[in-house]
């Protein structure tokens, strides 16, 4: 049912559309690459087993299968019904699920593939539904090619962010990724880092998880590692305007991590002389967090305590993660203990500001 609070803009910052079939990308590929795609094509090599142990077509809600028989997220009319109209969504930001397998593909093939994905998103989603926005899928392991796609694509301002997978081959603070940040800043676009992905590293710092439950739980550690890296490497000294959205990584860990960061820096900060200020400050100035999966302590008091320690409600962005099974329903996900004005921010005002979305006819300036 639509969000109960009238006058609240609803921006869903993490919605996964999907190619209806593997072949659906081919019309968007240059001809010579179509043959390559057919003959040598998309290889993923490693951790797809986790998706296989919890099928449901890439971890979808059981009721999200469109009657047309295409995968969850692949049918726009069905998505309109089940998500956009159901909740009265004003804007939804698409992250095509196929970026999880496309984004890490190597070399020119990766560039061609992600470009095709963006072309498909524009033609079959953004053109067809005015409430939709999208992330630019990029071959993030190939920085120069990714930067080119950002610069080429940014003229279409319906693309509101640059989409990375959380599973990268190196920590995101490393200089090899900096050309991508440069291009993103130049174009006024935030970076969105979404959990999972293939072609990267062992999924935890202590080896491969045994169970899907263990794997699903590990997303939050990955998000924390990326935040640590970007801060420690001085990304935000080099690019003070860069905004980074961590998606599906949770946020209850932010306050304890802030304490650790500042404690280490105050004692051993000479290791990182390029960080002139307490590193936790970068969290408040450069990071955003999507809310799904929402933190659910048993005691409502603990949620309030955690939010108070976290203190960054204006940097929370509501997300449903439709069509995945750990979906957050818009009218249920955010506890009533969050004061109304903060809740409205989380539901959409924060995102409208970040992405420069029109709200009730008045343009809101983008943060970057």
């Amino acid at each position, binding site marked *: 049912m639509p969000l109960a609070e009238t006058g609240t803009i609803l921006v869903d910052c993490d919605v996964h559309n999907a190619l209806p079939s593997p072949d659906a990308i081919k019309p968007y590929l240059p001809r010579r690459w179509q043959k390559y795609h057919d003959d040598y094509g998309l290889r993923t090599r490693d951790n797809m087993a986790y998706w296989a142990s919890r099928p449901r077509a890439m971890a979808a*809600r*059981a*009721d999200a299968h469109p009657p047309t028989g295409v995968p969850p997220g692949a049918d726009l009319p069905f998505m309109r019904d089940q998500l956009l109209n159901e909740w009265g969504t004003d804007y939804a930001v698409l992250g095509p699920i196929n970026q999880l397998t496309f984004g890490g593909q190597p070399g020119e093939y990766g560039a061609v593939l992600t470009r095709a994905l963006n072309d498909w998103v524009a033609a079959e989603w953004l053109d067809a539904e005015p409430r939709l926005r999208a992330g630019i899928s990029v071959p993030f392991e190939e920085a120069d090619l990714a930067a080119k796609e950002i610069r080429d694509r940014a003229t279409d301002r319906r693309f509101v962010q640059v989409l990375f997978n959380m599973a990268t081959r190196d920590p995101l603070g490393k200089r090899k990724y900096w050309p991508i940040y440069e291009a993103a800043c130049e174009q006024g676009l935030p970076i969105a880092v979404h959990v999972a992905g293939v072609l990267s590293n062992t999924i935890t710092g202590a080896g491969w998880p045994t169970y899907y439950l263990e794997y699903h739980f590990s997303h939050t550690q990955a998000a924390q590692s990326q935040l640590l890296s970007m801060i420690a490497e001085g990304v935000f000294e080099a690019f003070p305007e860069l905004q980074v959205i961590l998606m599906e990584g949770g946020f209850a860990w932010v306050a304890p991590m802030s304490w650790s960061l500042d404690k280490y820096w105050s004692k051993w900060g000479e290791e990182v002389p390029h960080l002139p200020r307490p590193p936790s400050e970068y969290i408040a100035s450069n990071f955003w967090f999507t809310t799904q999966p929402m933190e659910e302590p048993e005691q409502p008091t603990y949620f309030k305590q955690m939010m108070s320690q976290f203190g960054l409600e204006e940097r929370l962005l509501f997300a449903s993660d439709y069509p995945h*099974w750990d*979906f*957050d*329903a818009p*009218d249920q996900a955010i506890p009533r203990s969050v004061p109304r004005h903060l809740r409205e921010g989380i539901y959409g005002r924060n995102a409208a500001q970040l992405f420069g979305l029109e709200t009730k006819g008045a343009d809101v300036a983008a943060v970057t």
Partner: protein
Amino acid sequence: MTAKHVVATTDEIPPQGRKIVDINGRSIGVFNVGGSYYAIRNRCPHQGGPLCEGEIVGTVRASRPGSISYDPAAAYLQCPWHNWEFDLMSGRSWFDPKRVRARQYRVSVEAGGALREESAGEGGEIPTEGPYVVESFPVSVEENYVVVHVR
């Protein structure tokens, strides 16, 4: 005050079967478990998902890792969203039966003849299912009916 709602003939919901109906604007799932009928609100207490559309699974126990014993007889309903499991017969969640449960309704099986007499006695029509279904539920004396009791 609780009203009786006739939702199906017993044949319509065989063992392992289910029917989801609207009663007074509430979506309710009616299940046949081993010949007995149970009704649960089609709304998960977690985030409101369509609980009654979920998979039905049996009872699993494992005293140690790798030592799994399974009784496949239908016992738990899994919400299609976050997969929370609810005992079909009581509506109680598996993981916290005392504090988390799905709303359950009483179900009875009543003969058509008795229902017609009752209705005639009250001078009204036999209660129908759902706010949007206009036709009354035809009740014949030869059949038995699944009746959900809803306030």
